[in-house]
């Protein structure tokens, strides 16, 4: 699955997107798997309440299922307009 990072999440992790192979069944499971990898992921996901997630380009919750999902994106609250 394609995992994307935006704004300061992208900066902390150090890349805009990557392909992730995972057995995780929910977004929260994916976050746990990423956090376990390296400190930079742990730093980016330290405060999950400061983050938003989109699943296949729709805003979702962290308990959203990953079955059939092609793209997950993590980012801070949006500041458009």
């Amino acid at each position: 699955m394609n995992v994307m990072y935006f704004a300061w999440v992208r900066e902390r992790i150090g890349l805009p997107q990557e392909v992730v192979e995972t057995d995780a069944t929910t977004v929260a499971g994916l976050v746990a798997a990423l956090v376990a990898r390296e400190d930079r992921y742990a730093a980016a996901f330290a405060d999950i309440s400061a983050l938003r997630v989109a699943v296949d380009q729709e805003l979702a919750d962290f308990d959203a299922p990953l079955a059939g999902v092609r793209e997950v994106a993590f980012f801070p609250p949006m500041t458009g307009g």
Partner: protein
Amino acid sequence: MQVRVQSDAFDTGAELAEFAQGRHDIGAVVSFTGVVRDTVGDLHHMLIEHYPGMTERAIGGIVDQAVARWALADVLVIHRYGALAPGAPIMMVATAAGHRAEAFAAADFLMDYLKSRAPFWKKEVTRDGASWVAAKDADEQALKRW
């Protein structure tokens, strides 16, 4: 209904002059323009990041909601990304309707949702460094008005 997400600059006046032009069935046009603001005088430029694909989808969904809710003759949304100079227009919304209440409410609604539900992130670059603009609680609260 027209949505444009672009790095190119746009001219609010020229866009508004074109908008709903020649229509005799509208009585009210409201526009909002968001401008790069440099309060302190130290801003070099603003960087706007976005999520290509999701941006268009999110804005389209917000416009659909506005159209479903108010009797609108036309809607225009333009939002830039990339590096923007102080004083430059960031984005604009225009709504056309029979009466002023609908045109105002729809523009206000579109702005509240674009602010917090369209995937854009702003970073201010000053001489001293760069920092991401934090979302405001008030902006999230504003959504509850609708």
